[in-house]
């Protein structure tokens, strides 16, 4: 009986980057997992939490916990959403003991996509093939809150035909930061431009990351600068054949 994995695609992937979700499902199914997508899912509540609206974040988080209550594993193609669920739900349910217990119970089952592959599926080679020169952007939450750093690089290293070139500012924030990107647009834009300068220095034709929000910020800046470099979520690279 193949292991059951519940997919939390995240609202940004659902609405703006659906191919990323399909790629995650493809990779997991090829590895023999049974992927289910609880349709009642919406969002993890991070936008409200980051903006200081904890009551509203709680409402959305409660819905998440109800939807995924019976999951064995929850795989998320985003470092920031994983971090919200696995670390910050604790902060917002301090006064609601039943949801706090549920949050604590689910936290160890929530995995950012690359960590799920490395730690649970136990693989760093998924048989992917992509002929391209890419560079990797370390998404802040994935890097600093989930310690995701070597895993994606190992996975990329085993993609046939792929060349990975490190950029000098790989660990620097792309400037998205949720509502920061619009509340402090000029600074956010400046940070994005610093990032793309670093990307350009590698000569890569694509940027890979584990967070679609970062990729949206980076791709938006690249497009504005007229640069023909594309962005790919790690899942899309790993699903390539």
């Amino acid at each position: 009986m193949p292991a059951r994995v519940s997919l939390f695609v995240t609202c940004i992937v659902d609405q703006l980057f659906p191919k990323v979700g399909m790629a995650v499902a493809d990779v997991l199914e090829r590895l023999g997992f049974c992927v289910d997508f609880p349709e009642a899912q919406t969002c993890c509540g991070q936008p409200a939490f980051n903006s200081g609206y904890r009551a509203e974040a709680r409402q959305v988080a409660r819905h998440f916990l109800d939807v995924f209550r019976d999951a064995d594993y929850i795989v998320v193609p985003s470092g920031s959403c994983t971090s919200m669920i696995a670390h910050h739900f604790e902060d917002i349910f301090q006064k609601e003991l039943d949801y706090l217990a549920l949050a604590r119970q689910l936290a160890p089952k929530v995995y950012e996509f690359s960590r799920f592959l490395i730690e649970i599926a136990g693989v760093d080679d998924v048989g992917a093939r992509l002929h391209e020169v890419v560079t990797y952007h370390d998404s802040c939450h994935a890097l600093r809150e989930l310690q995701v750093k070597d895993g994606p690089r190992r996975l990329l290293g085993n993609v046939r035909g792929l060349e990975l070139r490190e950029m000098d500012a790989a660990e620097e924030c792309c400037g998205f930061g949720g509502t920061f990107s619009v509340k402090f647009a000029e600074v956010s834009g400046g940070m994005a431009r610093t990032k793309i300068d670093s990307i350009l220095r590698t000569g890569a034709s694509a940027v890979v990351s584990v967070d679609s929000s970062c990729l949206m910020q980076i791709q938006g800046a690249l497009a504005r600068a007229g640069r023909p470099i594309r962005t790919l979520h790690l899942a899309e690279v790993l699903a390539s054949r």
Partner: protein
Amino acid sequence: MADPKLQLAVFAATGRLMEKRRKAVNAQVCPDYQELRTQAHAVKRHTIENLDHYLEVFERNVTAHGGQVIFCKDATEVADFVLGLAKARIARLIVKSKSMTTEEIDLNERLEHHQLEAVETDLGEYLIQLAHERPYHIVAPALHKTKEQVADLLTERLGVPRETVIEKQTMIARAVLREKFLAADIGISGANFLVADSGAIVLVENEGNARLTTSAPKIHIAIAGIEKMIPRAQDLGVFLKLLGRSATGQPLTVYTSFLSGPRRGAEIDGPDEFYVVLLDNGRTKVLADRGKRQSLYCIRCGACLNHCPVYRKIGGHSFPWVYSGPIGAILTPQFLGVNHEPGLPFASSLCGACAEVCPVKIDIPKILLDLRSDVKKTEEREGTNRVERLAFRVWAWVMRHPRLYEMAGMAAASLAPSGNGGGWVRNVPWGIRVPPLDAWLSQRDLPSAPTKSFRQLWRERR
């Protein structure tokens, strides 16, 4: 961000400081770096949690060595004390070594109102004093000044012939300040650490001005926030190791002074009088908030500033108070109230680089998030920012109802421009032009809406 040359200077200087720190904390040179951080955090935690005890131990030991401890609740009390002492001793000239705490309380302004000359002796601080400006960075106060600007300053204020060679500018300042050191009646310093079991203060520096400030004049007054306390001299093994490396990549700064009172017995030189002013000025307020109390662990190394992508873009003068960068962003609202600058906790992408490099492991992003929540609660109480609050309430309601969420998604997709087949768009139609979209588009392109959402694709595939 308006001045591109300054912008570049800040970016470059902080970049260099980051690199220096990296070289000083890597696994070859400092294999126990992470353990040191853990220990430093634990010692600071213990000290802050028992601060009243250590303040009293410190006071006892300072007194035993012939010094005096003065507790001051605010800036006015400090100024009153210094002025009172200066008057009693008929003092006219004061030399000061670098102290962010004295900037915090605007001490120089207060002293100058009473015809006391208070001269900054750290080169960078001296220059910005001449320029009547605030420090730009916790460790590099004159980061923003070019040598041409310094040349102008020296000529204007000192009347010396114009000199643009940096080494010579430094020697001009050295000569002027040496006279001040030797003539000063009182030397005022800050303190990097207060050592409870020794009744001592610790001062770290590279120039020698702190040593001169505290050794040449007959009276030494050290002014420090109560949170600078550490329990034992032996804890300095950990703290000194972390401070130099985190700030400038130096295993030790050129001079580290451990001063525990006026000169004793047959010692030949040193001050005759030694005072330590322990300042509250709002620290007890921060202390009272259990979740944010760790903000007081800060040892003022500046590493968070150097690593913050926001600080590196906008620099120190964009911050509303003396403390800038990530530590400034969490201290300012706690000292001055969230309403003082309610946007400040939001001026961060929460990347976490600051927490990663903080030698005492302050969880700055967590405190920023708590402050954001505090701001919104205040807004709710005061009835401000209603539109945003309503927007998030509606958003939360939609997000709790999957079918509404799906419909909202489809509606937004139908209104959005489709770009050229999965492309990115530069403009959106007037109908849906809202401020957040405008802000986004001011800096980068927007992804066009895909024809089908993930859940639609999923249903088709199954």
